[in-house]
Structure formats: structure tokens, C-alpha cells
């Protein structure tokens, strides 16, 4: 009965009319030990099919495309960090504390400068006085020359007499 059934199934199988379930039946029959002698030659076929099912893909698949991209960007990131390190402090500018100190120093400097300029002005005034003196001397010289002229005039008059 079972044998008859299997023979029928084999015929159907070769006409490609078996369902997956029937094929599974065939496979389990031929992978078993009690195969009828006249069907023996089908055995390797079904054994082969069952054997092939167990073959596996063992190689690893390198799915690291994303990782390599990350590594490429690391150098860019490093340069960016370096640039930020150099540029940001100069942009950030001084803190409030520093500003106050700077103002203080500025004021002090201005004070010192104004003192100096005051001194300079005084000096300038004295210099003016000096110039005045110089003027007077020049005037004196002029008057002296007038005096000289006057004396030549008197000499002339004295000669005429």
C-alpha cells in the first residue's frame, strides 16, 4: 500500500504535479532505511537534495561601508577642532574683568599723558617768555644801531662846525 503510494507519487513527481507536502513525503521515504529495491536508484537524488539543503554560506560579509566613511571624516573633524581652537578665543574677546582692567590702564595712561602735556604747555609758555626776551634784545639792538646812527650824525654835525 505504502509502496504503491510512493510509486504513484514518483510518477506525479516526474510530471511536476506533486505538492510540496507530497515531495516532503517522498524525501522522508527515500532518506529512510527501508527503500524498496526497485526504487533504490532514486535514493541518491533525494539524498542529494536533502544534503544540499544543509550547505551553508560561511564567509563573512563586510558590511562596514558606513564605518569607513566615519574614518574618512575623522581627519576633517580633527582639523575643524584645531581651527576652532585657534580662532574662537580671538573672537570671544576679553571678559568683563579684562575690559575693566583695560579701561583702568587706559585711564591711567591718559592721565599720565595729560600730565605730560600740562608740563609741555608750561614749558611752551616759558619758551614764549624766552622768545619775548629775544624780541626785546632785538629791539635793544635796533635802538643801539639807532644810537650808532645818532652818534655818526652828531659826528657829522661836529665836523661841519
Amino acid at each position, binding site marked *: 500500500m505504502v509502496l504503491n503510494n510512493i510509486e504513484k507519487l514518483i510518477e506525479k*513527481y*516526474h*510530471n*511536476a*504535479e506533486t505538492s*510540496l507536502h507530497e*515531495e*516532503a513525503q517522498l524525501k522522508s521515504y527515500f532518506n529512510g532505511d527501508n527503500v524498496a529495491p526497485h526504487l*533504490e*536508484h*532514486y*535514493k*541518491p*537524488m533525494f*539524498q*542529494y*537534495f536533502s*544534503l*544540499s*539543503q544543509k*550547505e*551553508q*554560506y560561511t*564567509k563573512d*560579509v*563586510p*558590511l562596514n*561601508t*558606513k564605518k569607513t566613511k566615519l574614518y574618512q571624516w575623522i581627519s576633517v573633524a580633527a582639523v575643524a577642532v584645531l581651527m576652532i581652537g585657534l580662532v574662537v578665543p580671538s573672537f570671544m574677546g576679553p571678559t568683563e574683568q579684562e575690559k575693566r582692567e583695560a579701561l583702568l590702564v587706559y585711564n591711567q595712561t591718559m592721565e599720565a599723558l595729560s600730565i605730560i602735556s600740562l608740563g609741555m604747555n608750561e614749558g611752551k609758555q616759558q619758551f614764549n617768555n624766552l622768545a619775548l626776551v629775544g624780541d626785546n634784545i632785538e629791539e635793544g639792538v635796533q635802538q643801539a644801531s639807532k644810537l650808532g646812527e645818532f652818534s655818526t650824525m652828531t659826528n657829522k654835525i661836529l665836523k661841519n662846525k
Partner: protein
Amino acid sequence: MKQADFVSLVMPFKDKVFRLAKRLLVSREEAEDATQEILLKLWKNNKKIGDYKNVEAFSMTMTKNFCLDRLKSKQASNLKIVHSNYTDNNSSLQHQVEAKDSVDWVSKIMEDLPEQQKIIVQLRDIEEYDYEEIAKMLDMNETAIRVNLSRARKTIREKLTNTHQHGIK
């Protein structure tokens, strides 16, 4: 899609892809390369993968096309590395040793089948897909698949019967 998601999606059928590739390309190394190539292609398109209704069927179709392309380019350039391992039929001792291993013999019979039949037998008898799925993968109608499958099975039977009854010719 994260890498882990992808791996868990691909895990169930990567062996099937490999076996189909091996069926077509014969050599294990070639099949491994092909499988890797296909998985990488899938991974590259992993954003679109959600749109595919059946990733497994899609991958099998991809595998089929990829391997057939590979074979075609090999034949065109006369580089038959793939089959060269199996042409030494003249040594009778080796022949006998091989004959004993009749399970191996089946794989050799299958190598001689036309590509189309190889694929169908692989998908049906080894991977146990139903006809509808195979039809989708191969873009053929079910009747054509049944016809091809029947032919392939009968060829295998015939050759096996010959081997069994008369020894290896």
C-alpha cells in the same frame, strides 16, 4: 536600517542565495564571491529595502541574474575556470571512485542540465519554494515552470537509472 536589522533580515535566506549561486557557478569560491556581491548590493540599497514586498524573492531573482551574467561573461572571454575541475573523465580509477559516491553523481548530472532547469530544480527540490514564488522569482508562468521541472526531473531519472543499471558509461 541598522546593520543588525539588515543582518537579521538577510540571515534566513543568505544560504539559499549561496546555494543557488553554487548551483549555477559550480565552484564554491565563485559562489561565495557572488553571494557576497549580492549581499553588499542589498546593503547598499538598504534604504529602499523596506519598499520591496518580498526581499527574499527579490534577492533570489538578483542572484539568478547575477550568476547568469557572470556565466555569460566567462563564456564570452573563454575563461571556463568554473567547469574545468570536472572534465577529467578519462581516468577510470577516479571514475569508479566517483561512481561509488552516487550522491555526488547527482550533482554532476545536475551540472549538465540547462541553466533554466538547474535554477528551477534548485528552487523547487532543494529550497522547496512553491510554484507561485518560483514564478515570481523567475518571471515565468507556472505552467512553463512545471514543464521545465518535469523535464529536468526526467533527465535526472534517466541518467540515474542508466548509472544504476549499467554502471557508468
